[in-house]
């Protein structure tokens, strides 16, 4: 494999034209460098976005009421209406595609001003009424205690779970909050857990770390919401599309509330599945763009290599002629040129790959430092810029192929040199 005579020629050629070799190799170096840095950055973006959303149930949708836009069954248009407990029952009964359903109350009117008190501490936090099922759609992890459970709902217990920020404001550092009481808008609740959301990049009406979740039934009774449901989320069963299930749910709701079946604006809704799909296409688009630009730069580099190899062949016309005269086969000459081209490309590319990886590592380190210095609830959309081993291997393969292609034209030129013409060349 290692043929000293062949490598001797390559090293001599490179050594004799250091500047030219370096400048030529720079094209390929830059191509791979760009490809690595851009792919890494693209991955960083994808990581950043998906890290803050990955745990959110992607087969879910949310719905809320809006003013009707069509008159129907004697009702005027622009009527305000609400979902209620019965709607939830009917959806469970009549729409087979619904897996879990989580009605929610958003306590806007009980979240005004300094609404939460505990001893000398007080703060302003959002209050939500929730079912345990909510944790299946927008999962949280528990730092202390437990999530809300069915018994809390059933017995309308005055218990609550609180976000991280609530814990920080209302409790001493290191204090066990479980079993402690807090006054929330005039009513005492016993804290049973502290949660940390797994999806900090998806916000529904409020910052989750500054929220207090109380049992849905308790909230309806204590704060006088009757049988109202402000909005709800549901997931589709496996094999059911979220969009179709949402259509069925909306039909049921409109029927229940005498809303025109063709009134598209009476129910607002948000389909996570579609959002995820959009994001997937967006990321795909970014990736395609990166590869087009990266490969394009690489091709420019390869053209440079090809160009310089043509010059090298021309310079060596006489040598090639001598070699041919004393018995070198065309293949010997071709493989010589190709080896040189691949060698130059691979070395340049390898440096590009290494430097690109180094830059990504630097950015990663800087990001980690700046994140540590940021406020905890700051949203981050860029983390872990990196390229995988597959990418590294793939780019090395691309390099070798690029080198081969770049060497092809010069090699052909070298073969076409006739020994007599070369020897006449003085």
């Amino acid at each position, binding site marked *: 494999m290692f043929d000293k005579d062949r490598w001797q*020629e390559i090293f001599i050629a490179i050594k004799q034209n250091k500047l030219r070799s370096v400048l030529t190799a720079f094209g390929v170096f830059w191509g791979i460098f760009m490809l690595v840095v851009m792919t890494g950055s693209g991955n960083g973006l994808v990581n950043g976005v998906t890290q803050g959303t990955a745990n959110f149930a992607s087969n879910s949708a949310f719905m809320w009421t809006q003013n009707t836009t069509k008159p129907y069954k004697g009702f005027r248009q622009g009527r305000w209406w609400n979902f209620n407990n019965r709607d939830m029952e009917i959806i469970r009964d009549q729409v087979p595609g619904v897996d879990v359903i989580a009605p929610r109350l958003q306590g806007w009117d009980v979240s005004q001003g300094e609404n939460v008190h505990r001893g000398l501490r007080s703060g302003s936090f959002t209050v939500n009424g929730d079912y345990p099922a909510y944790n299946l759609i927008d999962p949280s992890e528990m730092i202390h205690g437990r999530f809300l459970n069915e018994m809390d709902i059933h017995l309308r217990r005055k218990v609550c779970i609180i976000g991280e920020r609530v814990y920080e404001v209302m409790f001493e550092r290191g204090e066990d909050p479980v079993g402690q009481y807090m006054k929330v808008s005039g009513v005492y609740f016993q804290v049973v857990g502290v949660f940390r959301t797994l999806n900090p990049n998806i916000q529904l009406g409020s910052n989750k770390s500054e929220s207090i979740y109380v049992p849905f039934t308790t909230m309806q009774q204590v704060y006088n919401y009757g049988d109202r449901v402000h909005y709800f989320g549901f997931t589709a069963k496996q094999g059911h599309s979220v969009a179709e299930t949402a259509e069925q749910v909306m039909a049921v709701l409109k029927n229940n509330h005498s809303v025109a079946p063709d009134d598209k604006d009476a129910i607002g809704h948000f389909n996570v599945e579609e959002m995820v799909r959009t994001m997937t296409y967006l990321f795909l688009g970014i990736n395609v763009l990166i590869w087009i630009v990266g490969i394009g730069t690489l091709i420019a580099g390869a053209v440079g290599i090809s160009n310089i190899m043509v010059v090298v062949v021309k310079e060596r016309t006489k040598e090639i002629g*001598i*070699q*041919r005269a*004393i*018995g*070198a086969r065309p293949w*010997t000459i071709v493989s010589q040129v190709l080896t040189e081209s691949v060698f130059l490309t691979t070395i340049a590319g390898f440096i590009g790959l290494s430097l690109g990886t180094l830059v990504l590592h630097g950015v990663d380190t800087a990001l980690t430092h700046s994140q540590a210095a940021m406020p905890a609830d700051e949203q981050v959309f860029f983390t872990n810029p990196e390229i995988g081993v597959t990418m590294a291997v793939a780019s090395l393969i691309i390099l070798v192929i690029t080198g081969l292609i770049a060497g092809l034209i010069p090699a052909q030129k070298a073969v076409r040199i006739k*020994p*007599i013409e070369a020897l006449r060349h003085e």
Partner: protein
Amino acid sequence: MDNSIIRVETLHKSYVNGSNALHVLKGVDLDIRQGEMVSIMGSSGSGKSTLLNIIGILDNYDAGAYYLDGIKIEKMSETRAARFRNKYIGFVFQSFNLISFKNAMENVALPLYYQKVSRKKRNMIALEYLEKLGLREWAHHLPSELSGGQKQRVAIARSLISKPKVILADEPTGALDSVTSTEVMEILKEVNATGISIIIVTHENEIAAQTQRIIRLRDGIIESNEVNHNFSNEVSAGVLLEQR
């Protein structure tokens, strides 16, 4: 005829340059026997270089026939031509044509490299040949560090290493002074004495006079093909000069 190493029959070759065809060889017949030392003379444009290129399988011919060691040489693939050159023919050029970045030993060993002889073995053989030519101590010098005569001796060693049947020397002394010329000719004669045929293209009468047969080419045909009875005789050089 049996021991003929190179046989050329009514060889024609013309170069087409745009609409003009230049008829360089107009029916050349030649027969060179094994172990002969022949010189080909002629003014520039007489076709002697073209003839040498065809004999060296560096160029092909249009009509006629060419037999090398009894094998008909026709239009063939470059790979085959390279093998023939490597096996049968050794080249010695006017401008030495050594590879500048290889030392003397590596230059001599190069034909064996194309025969895929291992590096160690071919370098050993190369040293033997350099030894024979008295260049052993120059084996690791680059061509740029050698004198003209030394370079030509390296080139001769290179042409010999593949044990060819014929050595084609194109103006082997053209770039050398008279003393080194004599030296190189002595070497070529010694080589010839081992049974290798030598064809020397030259325009110097002193050189031609040292060969067994002198072939004169003129305008693409052989003008004269005479045995040099005074082979290796210094005096005859002057006689030949007068004849001309």
